[in-house]
């Protein structure tokens, strides 16, 4: 039961930290993330959702609900254009669920699913912004300058944070069994 587990506190606190770390890291390492012509997007929030799905075990965290909340906050605070992340975060949670059903859980399949998640997220983000007119970047530039470095950075996040986050969730779900 989510209500009775330690995850009830741990998951929202982690989400809070990861969400604002995305912005802080983008500011602090700006010369590294946004060195011309590349633009790298930090996706720790997405990482937290995907990891939470992998490690929650029998405890069902209301991920979709939190994804909507995170989406609203990202829309209002980070982009100022409403209506994108509020749908995108829940969509990625749903995508993770669908993909996870067709693979046996392991480190390699997890990283593969996260790879697809990030690529889908960035692509849909690009598509929507292109339609609305926020960006006029061509698709080739998008793949070379945005998608590639973004995937690289977030896979590094994944590899570095997989075991620590796994340990945290193990501790948080231990009380249950």
């Amino acid at each position, binding site marked *: 039961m989510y209500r009775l587990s330690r995850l009830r506190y741990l998951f929202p606190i982690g989400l809070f930290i990861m969400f*604002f770390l995305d*912005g802080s890291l*983008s*500011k602090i390492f700006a010369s590294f993330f946004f060195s*011309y012509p590349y633009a790298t997007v930090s996706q720790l929030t997405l990482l937290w959702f995907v990891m939470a799905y992998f490690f929650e075990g029998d405890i069902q965290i209301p991920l979709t609900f939190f994804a909507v909340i995170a989406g609203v906050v990202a829309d*209002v605070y980070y982009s*100022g254009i409403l209506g994108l992340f509020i749908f995108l975060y829940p969509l990625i949670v749903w995508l993770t669920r669908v993909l996870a059903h067709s693979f046996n859980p392991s480190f390699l399949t997890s990283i593969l699913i996260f790879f697809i998640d990030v690529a889908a997220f960035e692509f849909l983000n690009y598509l*929507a*912004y292109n339609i609305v007119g926020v960006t006029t970047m061509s698709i080739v530039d998008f793949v070379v*300058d945005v998608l590639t470095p973004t995937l690289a950075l977030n896979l590094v996040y994944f590899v570095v944070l997989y075991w620590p986050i796994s340990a945290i969730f193990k501790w948080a779900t231990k009380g249950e069994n």
Partner: protein
Amino acid sequence: MRKFFSNRRLVMIVVALVVAFGLMGGSVTLRNNRLTPPLIQQFGNDIIGFGNDIIASPANAVQNVFTNYSDLLNTYHENKELKQQVAEVAQTKVRDQVLAKENKQLKAELNMKNSMTDYELITAAVITRSPSAWQQQLVVNKGQSSGIRKNMPVMSAGSLIGRVEEVNKTNSKIELLSDTSEAANRFAIEIDGKNGKTVNGVITGYQSETNELVMGQVTTKASISKGTKVYTNGMGGITPKGLYVGKVSRVGKDDYGLAQKVYIKPSADFNNLNVVSIAKTDN
């Protein structure tokens, strides 16, 4: 496949798409046409801004420690170079003071009100940056309550870096010149050409490959030499006159060979911004 596209789900997807694009289109239009976002959005932004401080303050403190350390390593070398410039700056400053005083007296004589060269700077600290590839946005810790309004130009280290995109009560979003959106960097600028001619124009784009601002559609015959300083010309009423933008790095022809295209190297580093100042005109 038939299960996936069951009626209910299809309707939900269509509704979600319509709502998403409706909201996005609506907020882009609102943002372009209104001076402030809706009150509920401002309120949300203010609350989230406070929350952000919990994470951003320690993160920025750590960054400052590292910046200070690397600054320290460069100090000796920098000091040597700067000493040479100090004497020169003092002279310029004195001259500037005298001219400003004279200007004031002359304006009083003519019964002229404040002109576009009179402005004050509001200093603000950068809290965070949008983790986005397309929106080069910063969030700073000053808002309407400090007198900041939409579209005010933003400076850092003595040169132009962007404009205020959205103001809330206690924080605001700044769009950098390097943003790829259409309206991010349309500043009216002026370049002193050879033989006393002035070239006026508008920044029409940004080239991320070379980190250069582009001033297109220049039809005057005045020749512009490399290294000339570029500054805002005060047209449009919100941006004061005389804000430093950068230096001319090269001059070329546009795609049809009719007009000149001037490339400007901005002097600010858009990726190393901790404190910015927002220029507020007096009139």
